[in-house]
């Protein structure tokens, strides 16, 4: 009667976690080997940054070779600043760098997860929807898009797994293409 937790998933909310879990499930990762950390309230961005670094520290101390996967939406400063902020925090605690190959994977939508969801759902249904990575689609999607509901998050993550990370389809949001590559590296790291 045991559950060996191999991946700590750090997310702001259920939608982010469902998307990431969809990808991992499609990759054959047993959902029971995940431990979810979701923001209980308050400022989500800072919580994800803090928790990601803390879990990286926990992994270094207790479970070498396993992984922490985070998803961090836009906080008004741009993806590069977000990434640097987390990288600085890791460096301050001598925890290395953000590196999916080393089991520390941080997904960074240029704006938020909804951009990726709209594009993936459209792709899956055979439509070639164009998305603007800098537009906020949380309340309304791009012209011609379908409504994105909670029930779409895991399927979108699963569909992402089916894409070729070395040659993503035309129009794939650049940060999603980057995230797909990171996720492949991350899977290799946690399966070692």
């Amino acid at each position, binding site marked *: *009667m045991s559950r060996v937790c191999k991946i700590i998933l750090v997310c702001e909310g259920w939608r982010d976690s469902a998307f990431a879990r969809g990808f991992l499930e499609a990759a054959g990762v047993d959902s029971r080997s995940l431990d979810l950390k979701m923001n209980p309230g*308050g400022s989500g961005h800072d919580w994800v940054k803090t928790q990601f670094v803390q879990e990286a520290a926990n992994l270094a101390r207790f479970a070498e070779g396993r992984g922490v996967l985070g998803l961090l939406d836009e906080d008004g400063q741009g993806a590069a600043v977000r990434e640097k902020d987390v990288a600085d925090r890791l460096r301050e605690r001598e925890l290395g760098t953000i590196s999916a190959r080393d089991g520390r994977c941080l997904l960074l939508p240029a704006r938020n997860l909804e951009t990726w969801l709209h594009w993936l759902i459209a792709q899956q249904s055979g439509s070639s929807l164009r998305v603007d990575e800098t537009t906020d689609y949380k309340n309304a999607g791009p012209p011609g898009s379908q409504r994105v509901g909670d029930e779409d998050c895991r399927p979108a993550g699963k569909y992402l797994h089916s894409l070729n990370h070395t040659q993503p389809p035309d129009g794939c949001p650049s940060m999603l293409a980057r995230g797909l590559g990171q996720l492949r590296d991350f899977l290799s790291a946690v399966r070692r």
Partner: protein
Amino acid sequence: MFTRCYADNYRCLANFTLPLEPLSVLLGPNGSGKSTVLILIANLRDFILGRGKSLDLFPPQTLTRWDKRIEQTFELGLRLEQGEYLYRLRIRHEAPERALNKVVEETLNLNGQPLFKADDEKIQLFNDTHHPGPELLADWHVSGISRINVRGDNLKLMAFRRAIESTFVLALNPALVSAISKEKQPVTIPMRDCSDFADWLKYISTAEVLARQEAEQSLAQGGLPGFRAFQADPSGDAEILQCIFQPKLKFRLDELSSGQIALIILETALAVVGEGHGVLMLDEPGNFLGLSEVQPLLTRLQDAALEGRFQVVLTAHHPLAVDFLAAGFGSWLEREPSGTTRVHPIRVAENVEGEKAGLRVSDLIARGWLSGLGLTNKEPPAESDSDLSTKLPNAESPS
């Protein structure tokens, strides 16, 4: 799915309204009324389905002790594809000392239009276009809805009854679970403590084959390593439910540990409710489970509810459940000195920021620092009981 439950003059529930969402988590101190809500819904279900009489399901002991009124009122709101249903039941205890009561009102409306109406004299049936149909004599102690047969023109009422049939309310007590199946009648809905699990599984094995297979598969891949399948061995007039483990080990259900029995029941319930897109209400599902099993269970319940596969209502004291689900899904139940239960949505953000930052919700509850309005006990909410039910819908926005 259920959208609300109302009760007046039932145990600690007086003029009490609980809004229900696809996922609702009821939190609160011991004796605050969380389990009472689930027991009430189970009893209303059993009454509507004809599984019990008003005399048994709503005895005089269920009247609020300090309330002198002799009538109890209950309402259930349900949202189905046909629209918004409202079921209302009023029971009068005319001779509580002799445990006598009678149904004085039972109605079912769909989008405000009648589908069924009964008082203590007659039952008025309505067809699907809400036109009056035949009249029947009322039975004082039995739901009129349970007595109606399926016709071509009452499909909306039957949809309501099917939804009620798909409501499972469980408060597991593995020590009471028997491996012996001896019921001759099919057990379509288990008892709250699931002591009749073996009988329920027997029914599932014939009527819900896919659900049984799914439960077996989930157990084998999840919390019961080595588990392969259930097996019913004949024993006289009864059957003994055995659990087969690899390589060739066989254990009676009641030989397993409490945690293993709880897992078996929960996996089976998840599979059955998932097949029927029903409602699963669990009283303290984290009880008996190992710590590492709790979060996977909560994640699956949350996924099922938010992805629209079935509705989930939980009561929880377990810190993992509280911290995982209180934000966004939690309702705080508490009893006032006068004794009635009040409910508030939990606004976690107000409690984890500011002066109480850094504390988990379970810490706040353990220290008695959390109330539903994000206030300490020094600043109790000002509304009276009668105000509360009308103010609840507006209580969504931060105070």
